[in-house]
C-alpha cells in the first residue's frame, strides 16, 4: 500500500487543497497502517467544511515526521478503535462533537457531555436539558467483596471537578473510571466566532497551569497563518518562560507527593519554591502564570538587563535549595519504599494509549517535542533523550526530578547573555492565509500540547482544535490504578497531575 499521507511541519501552514483528500476506506487503512508501524495520533477530529459537508482530518507523528490527511466523514463508519486503542478517545470526541457514529467502538461513551455542533441526533441518546454529566451506566463489577467508591465532581481539596468511580475488591482497585466534562466551556466553537482580538485571551486560559504551553501553540499557529516571525529575543523569552512553567509545576507536584507520603519538610519547601518560580514569571510579565506574555508575533515584554540579572540572581539562590530538597526527598528510604512499584503502567499499555510527556517517559517512551519537533529556542538547545523503565510512581517522580534539574540548567544558560526583543502589542491587522491548515506542537510540562487551525476561503477560522497532553494521559492514570490499593490513588494522581480544564476545554 503506497503511503498517501502528506508530510507537514510543526508550525508551518499548508494549503488545504494540497492535503490529500482520500476515500474513507483509504483514510482508515492508511491511518491504521501508520499507527501499527509505530505512528502516534497528534490530532484526529471532524470539522464542517464550506458547503456543509463534514470531514475528518488526522495528523500523525512517526519517528520525527508529521503527516496529515483528510476524508469525507460518513455518518456511520467502522471504528478505528477496533483496530488500534489510540483512536479510542478521539472517536468518542468526534461522535460527541459531530454526531458521527463509530460502529463497533469498544466503549462508546460521551466525553464532555454537550450537544453536538450539527444539531443531529445524539449518538449517546442524552438529554442535555439534564445538566449532570455522567448519566449513563458506569462500568460495573459484581461478586462477593466487590464495592464501588464514587468521588466528585466536587473534591475534598481546592482542585478542579471530575468524577472518579472506583470498582474495588477490598482495598484493591479493579478498575477506575474517570468521567470528566465538568470544566467544559465550549472553547473550540467559541474561538471560531469571536473577534480576533479575543483569541489570545481565550487560548491562554485553556489551562492556567499550562498558560505558556497553550499560548505558544496558539501564537505559533497564528504566526504561520499571518506570516509573522518573532525575533530571536522573543524566542528566548518564550523558551525561558515555558521552562519556568515546567519548573513551577514539577516542583509543586513533587512537594505534594511528599505531602501524600506524610513527609512534610519537602512538602512545605517545595510549595514555597514553586511560588518562587511563579514569582520569576510575575517579574517578567506581571502575572504569575505568564498570562499576557506570549502574543502572535513575539512577546509583550522585554527582558531588561536589570531584570535578567535579578532573575539570574534568584535562580542562583534557588538552585542549591531545589537540589537539596529533591535529594532529601529521593534519598529518604521510607519515601522510596512508598513510591516504588506503586501504580505501574507497562511499556506496552503506554504505547497503545499513546501516553506523552513525563507519564510516557516514565514508561520507557522518550518522546519529547522539544527534541523531536523543536520550535522557539529549542532548535539551539540540546535536549537529551531520556526515559525511565519501571512506569511506577517512582519512575514518574524520578523523571520529574530530572526535568527540574535540566530546566534549571536551560534557564540558567538562557540568562547568560543579553536578551534583545521588541515587544509586540495587539494582533496586527493583516489577513490570515485562506484555505490553510496549520498544526503546532509544544512540550508543555505534561507533554505534547497541540493546536490545529483550519481556515476557510475568506481567511476566517473554520475550525480550531485544541489538544492538551492530558487528553492522552487520563487513561494512563486509570491503568496505573489497576490492582493498586485505593489508598495509593493520591500518589498516582499527583505523579500524573492531569488537567481537567485542559481536557474539558
Amino acid at each position, binding site marked *: 500500500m503506497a503511503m498517501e499521507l502528506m508530510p507537514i511541519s510543526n508550525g508551518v501552514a499548508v494549503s488545504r487543497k494540497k492535503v490529500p483528500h482520500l476515500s474513507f476506506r483509504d483514510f482508515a487503512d492508511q491511518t491504521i497502517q501508520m499507527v501499527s508501524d509505530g505512528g502516534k495520533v497528534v490530532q484526529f477530529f471532524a470539522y464542517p467544511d464550506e458547503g456543509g459537508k463534514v470531514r475528518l482530518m488526522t495528523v500523525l507523528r512517526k519517528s520525527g515526521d508529521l503527516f496529515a490527511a483528510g476524508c469525507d466523514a460518513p455518518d456511520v463508519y467502522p471504528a478505528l478503535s477496533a483496530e488500534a486503542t489510540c483512536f479510542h478517545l478521539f472517536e468518542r470526541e468526534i461522535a460527541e462533537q459531530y454526531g458521527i457514529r463509530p460502529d463497533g467502538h469498544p466503549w462508546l461513551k460521551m466525553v*464532555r457531555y*454537550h450537544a453536538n455542533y450539527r444539531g443531529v441526533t445524539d449518538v449517546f441518546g442524552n438529554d442535555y436539558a439534564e*445538566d449532570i*454529566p455522567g448519566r449513563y451506566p458506569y462500568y460495573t463489577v459484581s461478586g462477593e467483596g466487590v464495592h464501588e467508591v464514587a468521588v466528585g*465532581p*466536587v473534591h*475534598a*481539596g*481546592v*482542585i*478542579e*471537578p471530575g468524577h472518579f468511580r472506583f470498582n474495588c475488591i477490598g482495598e484493591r482497585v479493579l478498575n477506575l473510571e474517570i468521567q470528566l*466534562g*465538568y*470544566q*467544559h*466551556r*465550549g*472553547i473550540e466553537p*467559541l474561538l471560531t*466566532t*469571536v*473577534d480576533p*482580538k*479575543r483569541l*489570545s*485571551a*481565550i487560548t491562554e*486560559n*485553556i489551562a*492556567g*497551569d499550562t*498558560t505558556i504551553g497553550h499560548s505558544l501553540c496558539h501564537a505559533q499557529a497564528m504566526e504561520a497563518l499571518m506570516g509573522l516571525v518573532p525575533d530571536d529575543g522573543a524566542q528566548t523569552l518564550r523558551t525561558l518562560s515555558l521552562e519556568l512553567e515546567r519548573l513551577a509545576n514539577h516542583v509543586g507536584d513533587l512537594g505534594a507527593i511528599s505531602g501524600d507520603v506524610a513527609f512534610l*519538610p*519537602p512538602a*512545605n*519547601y517545595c*510549595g*514555597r519554591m*514553586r511560588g518562587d518560580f511563579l*514569582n520569576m514569571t*510575575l*517579574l517578567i*510579565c*506581571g*502575572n*504569575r*502564570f505568564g*498570562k*499576557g506574555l506570549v502574543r502572535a508575533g513575539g512577546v*509583550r515584554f522585554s527582558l531588561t538587563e536589570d531584570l535578567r540579572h535579578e532573575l539570574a540572581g534568584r535562580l542562583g539562590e534557588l538552585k*542549591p*535549595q531545589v537540589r*537539596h*530538597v529533591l535529594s*532529601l526527598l529521593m534519598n529518604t528510604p521510607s519515601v522510596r519504599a512508598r513510591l516504588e512499584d506503586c501504580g505501574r503502567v507497562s511499556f506496552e499499555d503506554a504505547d497503545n494509549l499513546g501516553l506523552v510527556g513525563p507519564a510516557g517517559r516514565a514508561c520507557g517512551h522518550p518522546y519529547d517535542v522539544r527534541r523531536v519537533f523543536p520550535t522557539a529556542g529549542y532548535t539551539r538547545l540540546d535536549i537529551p533523550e531520556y526515559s525511565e523503565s519501571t512506569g511506577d510512581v517512582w519512575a514518574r517522580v524520578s523523571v520529574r526530578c530530572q526535568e527540574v534539574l535540566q530546566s534549571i540548567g536551560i534557564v540558567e544558560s538562557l540568562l547568560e547573555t543579553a536578551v534583545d526583543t521588541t515587544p509586540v*502589542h*495587539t494582533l496586527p491587522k493583516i489577513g490570515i492565509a485562506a484555505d490553510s491548515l496549520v498544526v503546532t506542537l509544544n512540550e508543555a510540562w505534561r507533554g505534547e500540547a497541540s493546536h490545529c487551525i483550519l481556515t476557510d476561503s475568506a481567511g476566517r477560522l473554520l475550525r480550531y482544535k485544541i489538544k492538551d497532553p492530558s487528553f492522552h494521559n487520563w487513561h494512563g492514570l486509570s491503568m496505573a490504578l489497576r490492582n493498586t490499593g485505593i489508598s495509593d490513588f493520591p500518589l498516582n494522581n499527583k505523579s500524573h497531575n492531569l*488537567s481537567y*480544564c485542559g481536557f474539558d476545554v
Partner: protein
Amino acid sequence: MLSILKNRFEQGYRTSGYPKTPVCLPARYRGRPELNMDAPVDVIHACADVCPQEAIDPVAKTLDMGRCMFCGDCERIADGRFVRFTQNYEIAVAKKTDLVTKGTLPDLARHAKQHFKKYFGRSLQLRQVSAGGCNACEADLNVLSTPFFDLARFGINFVASPRHADGMVVTGPVSRNMKTALLQTYEAIPEPKVVIAAGCCALSGGPFQGSPEITEGLDRLLPVDLFIPGCPPHPMTHLHALLSFFK
C-alpha cells in the same frame, strides 16, 4: 535526619509579616487601575477598542474590574494616558457596582457586612468550588496555605465538606455541567453563609464570555457577598480581601 535539619536551616523562616508589614509587588504587576478623566476622547476610544473583554465604557469613562483580565493592553496602547495600572493589590469589593471604577475603590473593611465580622471574625471555614475556569484561580487560592501566606494563622481554613463550612469561594465561569453540583454545595452549607466570587470568570464569565456553556457571573445564580477581581487574583489580593472583610 541530618539532611532534614540542614534543609530546614537552608530554607529559613519565610512567613510574611502581612498585614503588619506591607508586601510590595513588582513593577510589572497590574493591580488597581487608575483612570485619567482628562484623557482625549480618541485615546479613551482606542483603549476601549483594544480591550478583549469590553471592560471599558468610553462614554462613562469607567473600567469594569469584573470583566477585566488585567492584560494591560489598554495601558500600553496609549502609554498609560487613560488607564494606568498601579501595584496596589487591594482591589476586592463588597458590591458588584463598585467593580465599575474610575480608579478609586471604597474601603472594603468598612463596607463589609458587620454581622459577618461578628460571626466569622475569629474562625472562618471555607469550602472552595471550582466551576469551569482554567485552574489558575484555584492554584493561587491553594498557595494561601503555603508558608509565605500561611492563612491558617488568621483562623481561616479551607475545608473538605460544605457541612463544615461557613461559606463558599467560587472560581470559574460556572460551566453548565458544574451548575447543579455548585448549587448543591451551596445548599449543604449551614446558615448563615457567605459567598465569595474570585476571579473574572466567576465575576463575569471572564475570557469565556459569550459561550453558551457558561454563566456570565456567579451573582446570576447566587447572592454574592465579596467580589475578588483578577485573572487570577494575586494571593495577596485574596489575603487582603479575606482579612478586611472578616477581621
